[in-house]
């Protein structure tokens, strides 16, 4: 197992552990279990693809392990710490320090430069402005966007926007990257680029968890977890991993 180079992890605990995780909604009197009793463990340094059709519960599961959503019952432990009794402020700090999110629609702030977009998490980490700009610039250069520092999202291609978003996810040096359909809005070639970045990051020790419904994307991962009707129906190591051949080489962190 690779040791994360970015943060000193408590080696005694898995990065993520879920115990009988349930998320249910009440839709017009009918209770729907989006996630229905999922127990699994993800270790430090893994590269996991979470698969499943739309409505299978994969995104809901990811939102809960990303501490964005609160389980109806069951437990999520991050780095050995139970999150059930944490205040929303504590969860915000946890997301800020340990989790980097990448979204399908990039979710960049419009009319805001790449640097300022990447620096947003550092604001909430309480870093001063000079340091924020320095760190954001460094991350953007790592993502090959050294010449796009001051561009607003409208002036960037989809691939470039997603790389800004990845830089933003990584700027606080988190333990894990959670990506929800990260290539869903990108063409095949650009998708390959993004997957290459993920591979490089995972090689550098960051745990990467990608939610996708595309086999081609999932094939890049080392482990594949498939959801159906809120339950895990398959959890296996990937035999013949695809190797992304993106032009971009990610520097070792």
């Amino acid at each position: 197992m690779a040791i994360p180079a970015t943060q000193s992890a408590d080696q005694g605990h898995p990065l993520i552990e879920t115990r009988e995780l349930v998320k249910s909604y009440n839709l017009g009197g009918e209770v729907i279990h989006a996630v229905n009793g999922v127990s699994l463990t993800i270790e430090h340094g893994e590269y996991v693809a979470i698969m499943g059709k739309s409505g299978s519960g994969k995104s809901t599961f990811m939102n809960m392990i990303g501490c964005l959503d609160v389980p109806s019952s069951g437990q999520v432990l991050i780095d050995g710490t139970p999150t059930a009794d944490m205040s929303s402020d504590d969860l915000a700090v946890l997301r800020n320090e340990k989790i980097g999110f990448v979204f399908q629609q990039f979710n960049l702030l419009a009319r805001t430069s790449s640097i300022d977009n990447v620096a947003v998490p550092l604001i909430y980490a309480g870093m001063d402005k000079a340091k924020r700009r320095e760190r954001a610039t460094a991350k953007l250069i790592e993502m090959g966007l050294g010449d796009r520092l001051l561009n607003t999202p409208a002036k960037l291609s989809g691939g470039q926007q997603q790389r800004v978003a990845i830089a933003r996810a990584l700027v606080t040096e988190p333990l894990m990257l959670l990506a929800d359909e990260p290539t869903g809005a990108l063409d095949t070639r650009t998708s390959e680029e993004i997957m290459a970045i993920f591979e490089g990051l995972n090689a550098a020790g960051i745990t990467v968890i990608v939610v996708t419904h595309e086999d081609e994307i999932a094939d890049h991962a080392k482990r594949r977890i498939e959801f159906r009707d809120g339950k895990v129906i398959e959890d296996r190591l990937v035999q013949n991993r695809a190797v992304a051949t993106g032009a971009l080489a990610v520097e070792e962190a």
Partner: protein
Amino acid sequence: MATIPAKRKGQKFLSSWGVNIAIALTALRTNLMRSILTMLGVLIGVFAVTLAVAVGNGAQESVMQSINSFGSNMAIIVPEPDNEGGRRSYDRGRLTSRDLRAIEREVPGVIATAPQLRSTLDMVTAGANTSTSAVGTTPGYGQITNHPADRGRYISEADVRSAARVLVLGQTTAETLFGEFDPVGETVRVDGVPFQVIGVLEEKGSTFGTDNDDTAVLPISTMRQRFVGDSLPGPDDLQLAFAGFEEGASLVQGKIDITNLMKDRYRVRDGEINPFRVRTTQEFMEESQFITGILQAVLVAIASISLLVGGIGIMNIMLVSVTERTREIGLRMALGAKGSDIRNQFLVEAAVLCVLGGAVGLVLAWLAGSALTAYADFPVPIGIGVALGSLAFSAVLGLVFGSYPAIRASRLSPIEALRTE
């Protein structure tokens, strides 16, 4: 669980306010027209309240000035005859020249006294006529009431002794009767009797719309003999009198002293109603301050309604802003923003909106105040205190009306906010 060390908290506090102001300015620029319209509400409110405060202060100032112009240290003694059964009784409630001499002699701090008999007199010259409220008095009157002659001379002891037919005219009366010409030495017929104009009084301006220059002064003896003698109970009686005090004398004590002296002289027993009234300029000032204070409070209260409406506009637009930016709020929460970070962001946005609107409103109020001062001859002072108060008030307005939308934003669930389209 990792929390932010205490050392970093202050730093975070400072840096996040700077960031919040930057975010707010970007948001306001994004919806420029909407921001301007919202600011307009605050602008009008701050404009109205600032001007109302300034007008109140100006009224206070101008009243103080006119009271001071009548001599700041004096008491006025007014006899109050019993008025039972609708019939005036002069058994009690008289005031005579002898009383004035007693006051001068016995009340500490009194430097001069002056009697007053007032009557409206018709005055006619060759080309003009007017009717004015004239005062019969003694030479000390000009000094005590701070209204001496400007041209010519004031009435003298000799004029009083001989009941001379002489007049000192107020500026307005002089102009009405003589226009541009110098009236000193000219003749005016007063109720048919020729009088010589011996002087013109200093210009005094108006108080509460009353022209203080529409007057004339003549010897008390002349006034009594020719114009008001019949209406008074005795040959030495006065309508009212003034007592001037030296600088620094206590008017409160002066009033007590005069009252006690008068009670002695007229044998008023304890418990009986005083047949006279003593008022001091200090009391006038306090009363005027009270009245202008009420005036100001009423104005400010009315103006505050527009500020309230402006504040509601702020709340409305902030609710819209929170709804529009729900996804951004979710994103910021995913990236580590706490509820308090989101709350502060929207509070600052509301405060910035209000302070910008307030600042423009303040500038307009200042312009309007200056224009009023210059053209309407009414002081509308907007001092640094009023200015800073307006700005601080605008900020508080933003915080108050922005707090509901901001708190609502801060309580959003990260995932639901993120899922919003």
